[in-house]
């Protein structure tokens, strides 16, 4: 009897309730309306990793989308992401390259030119430099350009000096020295997990998660719903 009840809860009631509650947008719409009444802009948080080719689609795509709607975009670079001890991790990395190329082309771009996955360690310095930028606009400019250079520019290798030059051009400052942002980057990963996600590129809008590289249209639609709601 207890086993049957547990089975019913686990197989039907809990997942069906999760589905049903996910469709209730009223509380989120109310929170967004309150933010706007208080003069606070709508905000999208994006958690991303430089070693993730999907980030090369998500960051510029979300930046365009938020800029067009005057929505604040906060970037949280990650060093740690994914599922611990995932046996499919290597296959995922390979597939992401091919899939991200197709997504990029579908969006009217040239596609990714890098043909091999990049390790998190190899590009950790980019996450440190990005996290060290205090101004959100600088952070966004650098992240977009670095991801473009890393994944979409066939001429770019992984040399620090090339990215440091990019950093100077875009922000007018030298990149942060060393790996001083380790604690802040760990907090980003912790914040991602505590808020209910595990992977890059994850966008959070009013508590709702989206894989940003493949759900840009849905994020735009949700933003428009919230803005329409606020004007009523």
């Amino acid at each position, binding site marked *: 009897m207890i086993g049957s009840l547990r089975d019913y809860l*686990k*197989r*039907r009631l809990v*997942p*069906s309730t*999760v*589905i*049903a509650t*996910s*469709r209730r947008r009223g509380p989120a719409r109310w929170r967004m309306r309150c933010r706007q009444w208080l003069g606070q802009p709508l905000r999208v948080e994006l958690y991303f990793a430089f070693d993730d080719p999907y980030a090369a689609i998500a960051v510029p795509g979300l930046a365009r989308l938020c800029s067009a709607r005057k929505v604040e975009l906060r970037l949280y670079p990650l060093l740690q992401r994914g*599922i*611990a*001890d*995932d*046996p*499919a991790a290597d*296959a*995922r990395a*390979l*597939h992401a390259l*091919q*899939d991200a190329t*197709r*997504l990029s082309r*579908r969006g009217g771009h040239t596609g990714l030119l890098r043909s091999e996955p990049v390790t998190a360690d190899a590009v950790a310095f980019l996450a440190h430099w990005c996290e060290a930028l205090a101004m959100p606009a600088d952070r966004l400019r650098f992240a977009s350009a670095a991801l473009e250079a890393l994944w979409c520019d066939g001429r770019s290798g992984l040399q620090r000096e090339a990215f440091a030059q990019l950093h100077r051009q875009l922000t007018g400052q030298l990149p942060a020295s060393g790996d001083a942002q380790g604690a802040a980057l760990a907090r980003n990963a912790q914040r991602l*997990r505590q808020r*209910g*996600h*595990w*992977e890059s590129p994850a966008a959070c809008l009013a508590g*709702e*998660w*989206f*894989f940003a590289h*493949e*759900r840009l249209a*849905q994020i735009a639609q949700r933003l428009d719903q919230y803005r329409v709601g606020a004007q009523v």
Partner: protein
Amino acid sequence: MSHHHGPASATVEFFFSFRSPYSYLAAARAFALPQQYDIELVWRGVRPMAMRGQPLPLAKQLYILRDAAREADALDLPFGPMYDPIGEGVWRCLCVAEYAAEHDRLAAWVITAATAIWGRGVDVRRDDAFVELCRTAGLDSAACLMAIERSDYRERVECNTARLAELGHWGVPTFAFDGELYWGQDRIVDLEHALREAGHLRGASASPRRRVSA
């Protein structure tokens, strides 16, 4: 109808799990592909990730349910209440899929069973509900109850699961065409682009033929 041979040049392999909501969302469009493109769609029903050692943390389970609900709404497909068929429910559906493929009712069965699981909350482990689904799909319910015991059907499922791993993939729904893999119900558009690029779009005068095999 072919059984578990390697794909010919104009085949699309369709890897599907009854426990995957995204597989459910892909099913109708997948089975419609041979009407629009000159291809053979090869059915590959596989064991769910959770029944082949792939970790599925809670955050991912929740995300999948919520995202699939959004996508189902966009596709105007029923989603929720659901009943997780993991275990024997999955095996029943997979074995009957193999039987249905032999009787030209594969699409009807897959869509009927998946809609019941993900859109109506039907427990496919219950004989009464299961028999009703078989009838709805135009299948002989007594034969279906025998099919779920057939070891050769289970072996086919194991072969399909091994085939997915051999291709270097882990998730569903996945389509394999011309050496490339398309993972996700929202990647059918990319698959269709590749099919058009490869010249497989049917002409307006082409005669529709049944082109689904197991």
